[in-house]
């Protein structure tokens, strides 16, 4: 079956974006769950926990964006 390389690139971009989001969502989901549990157990520390959560979420989001950029490049080049 003849395949167009461009079609394969689009295919890879779609699959890659989906996998990326799965990973990022799993990471941020676990993080948020743990942070909420922490806040529920220790409401006094809510401010500190929230700050640390945002920092960790930003780092997870950062690596997620690295791979999303790769998929965007696959789709537009």
């Amino acid at each position, binding site marked *: 079956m003849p395949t167009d390389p461009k079609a394969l690139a689009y295919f890879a971009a779609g699959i890659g974006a989906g996998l990326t989001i799965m990973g990022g969502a799993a990471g941020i989901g676990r993080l948020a769950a743990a942070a909420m549990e922490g806040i529920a157990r220790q409401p006094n520390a809510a401010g500190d926990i929230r700050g640390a959560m945002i*920092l960790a979420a*930003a780092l997870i989001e*950062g690596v997620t*964006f*690295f791979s*999303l950029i790769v998929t*965007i490049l696959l789709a*537009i080049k």
Partner: protein
Amino acid sequence: MIAAFVLAASLAGQPTPAHEPPPETPHQSVTEHAAEGAPHAAGAAHAAEGHEGPSEILMHHVTDRPLGYSFDLGPVHFEPTRHMLFFVLASAVVLIVVRLAVRSYREGIPTGIGAAVETLVVYVRDEIAEKNIGHDGLKYTPLLLSFFFFILFAALLGLLPFSSTSTGNISVTLGLAIVAFIAMQFAGIAKYGVVHHFTNMIPPGLPTWLLPIIIPVEILGMFSKPFALMIRLFANMLAGHMVITTLLLLIPLMSAIGLVFGVPMIPISLGLALFIMVLEVLVAFIQAYVFTLLTSIFIGMSAHPAH
């Protein structure tokens, strides 16, 4: 009164990002990109039919393009692009808003816009700078405030009709990241001196045979911090606009199948696009906060290494 001082200091610090866009290279790469994009679009099957495909429209919406005129300023040839225009506009808006905020003080009490700006300034100073950098955080507050307000206003400007987000251009975020990188190195060097600053990167008590591994890793880490800042801001700003455009593009895509699908798609598409647009307002604040927070944490890391 301290807030007024910080505001004045932030005013002094404001022009910093304005010098930042690496003047020639980004612009050239952008025009090259546009040049190589043009024959591609012309060669596409859709162009032959007289209209562009969805991906061309999407790219047209988010990428930079020249405004169509050029001028010479001394030896430098300028060819303004949309992102350059909105970069200057965002800087101007920051300057005007901060100036208005400083002027709104009546006997030391802020009124109107000053109260709103002061809230943000005090938040950045107390919750971001002093918390993460420590007692010398006040020294870096003007820089962090410049980052915060520029990123905030650049993102909010991009939500207006017929506008574009200058931070959605990787060259602009590269400029911001270079400033952040210089600030990180400056914080360490000013406190410990050049040699001690770099030896600080090696964790104390490390076995000697690990040094060949840890030194490249630390050097990589030094550069990957601003790199991550650059990619994060760029991708966030780009992604929001891409999602809005894609949702609106659903209407022509569905009506190409049939009007029965296209017409009901209009309210759905508009509703989703509006939702993402409102989310983008939130994202503007979050990204300004995250960039400022990460920069202050990195500055704090080089000012207070593990020991």
